[in-house]
């Protein structure tokens, strides 16, 4: 069973790698979105360092949203999804494997790119470390919640815009605690509470996300 799960993750990664430049879209979008902030609010360093945690996190959130609409739709269109539902792997684990692959191709690269961007926004070095940690804890939650949104809209002709409407309100807590941790580090007022809550949220999302997404897939794939 574990082998089948890993094979599915591996397959998704292979598909992502062979999919070419499209896979890097999330990171490219992330970089461009963050560079828009100084252009929007002006180059004053004090202001930039004040908005840096929020700007990076908001951009990461939107970047993670970008590829969600293809998460199940591609498999739905070519029939792979119904074959996966007939396979030995319970649908909950199919969802989990896809969320893991989504995170490896979006969340992880985002966390890797974030420190450079944060430097562009004049963030302190204390903030950088916590920014990476908070992104590593928070972006998997984004992938898992996103999987629910993607599962709810499989089979709809225009699911993409709807996913954003469904998922963004649910992303609010992740944004708040993620930014809270980074600001805590920058202002030196402690980061543990925020990071612990993020970690707790990740555990909750790991359990509930696949359950809800699997229930949704059973209904949307008929």
């Amino acid at each position, binding site marked *: 069973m574990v082998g089948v799960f890993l094979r599915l993750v591996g397959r998704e990664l292979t598909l992502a790698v062979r999919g070419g430049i499209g896979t890097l879209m999330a990171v490219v979008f992330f970089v461009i979105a963050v560079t828009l902030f100084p252009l929007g609010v002006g180059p004053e360093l004090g202001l930039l360092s004040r908005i840096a945690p929020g700007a990076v996190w908001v951009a990461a959130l939107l970047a993670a949203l970008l590829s969600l609409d293809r998460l199940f739709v591609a498999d739905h269109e070519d029939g792979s999804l119904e074959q996966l539902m007939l396979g030995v792997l319970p649908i909950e684990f199919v969802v989990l494997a896809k969320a893991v692959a989504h995170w490896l191709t979006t969340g992880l690269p985002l966390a890797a790119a974030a420190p450079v961007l944060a430097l562009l926004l004049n963030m302190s070095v204390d903030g950088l470390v916590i920014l990476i940690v908070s992104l590593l804890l928070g972006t998997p939650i984004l992938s898992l919640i996103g999987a*629910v949104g993607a599962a*709810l*809209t499989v089979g*709809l002709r*225009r*699911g993409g815009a*709807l996913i954003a*409407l*469904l998922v*963004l*309100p*649910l992303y*609010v*807590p992740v944004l*708040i*605690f993620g930014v*809270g941790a980074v*600001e805590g580090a920058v202002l030196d007022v402690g980061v543990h509470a925020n990071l612990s809550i993020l970690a707790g*949220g990740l555990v909750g999302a790991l359990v*509930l996300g696949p359950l*809800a997404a699997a*229930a*949704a897939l059973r*209904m*949307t794939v*008929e």
Partner: protein
Amino acid sequence: MATRATGATRRGRTRWASIHFFANPARFLRVARAVYPWAAGSTAALIVAGLVLGLYVAPPDYQQGDAYRIIFVHVPAAWMSLFIYVVIALCSAASLVWRHPLADLVAKSSAPVGAAFTFITLLSGSLWGQPMWGTWWVWDARLTSMLILFFLYLGYIALHAAFDDPAKGARVAAILALVGVVNVPIVKFSVDWWNTLHQPATISKIDAPSIDSSMVAPLLLMAAGFMAYYVTVLIPRVRAQIASRRIRNLRMAQVSR
């Protein structure tokens, strides 16, 4: 490998006549017809009484003057928007677990009413903010939570409407409602947390001012009136849903003729 047949006509009956008292639409419609005039009447009576007590009898606040009177709309509307979201979630659970056909219709019919109450909460909060804080919008923790609740309502309504097959839309939206109801307390908690982190410069006077009993009575009357209003608008909406389902049945009969 074997299959066993059941007739199409029997299918219809087993789906309607089971599980629960209100699962039968005929029975629901009977009860609804009896309840409807009472609900409509008490809506009018309670809201008039609440407005009279709130606007004329209750004394002005020693700090806010007459401006505080908007809470007689604002606070009950906020209660209702949360209450209706819980109703939608409970109906969604009933529809997913017991395939309760009426629960779907109640959930679907409730959503726009809940969204309207949420919007009234936001609007009245904003109107209240102007004399209180001198600005139309304050990122107060409660208003922010309400805003996110409003987005959740919109998502639910949009998802419901996105499916060609209403039965499928109802089941999928039900899952979203349940996901949302798990999330609402987390959102609330996170927004409170965020608010204390960014302590606003303004002093919040909305939070539990010592309320005179002459203010409690109109508040509760208005809340009861809003509840009665909810029942009053829900009944025709559910009726319309049942009627449109019957129209679909008849139309399909024509198509396959």
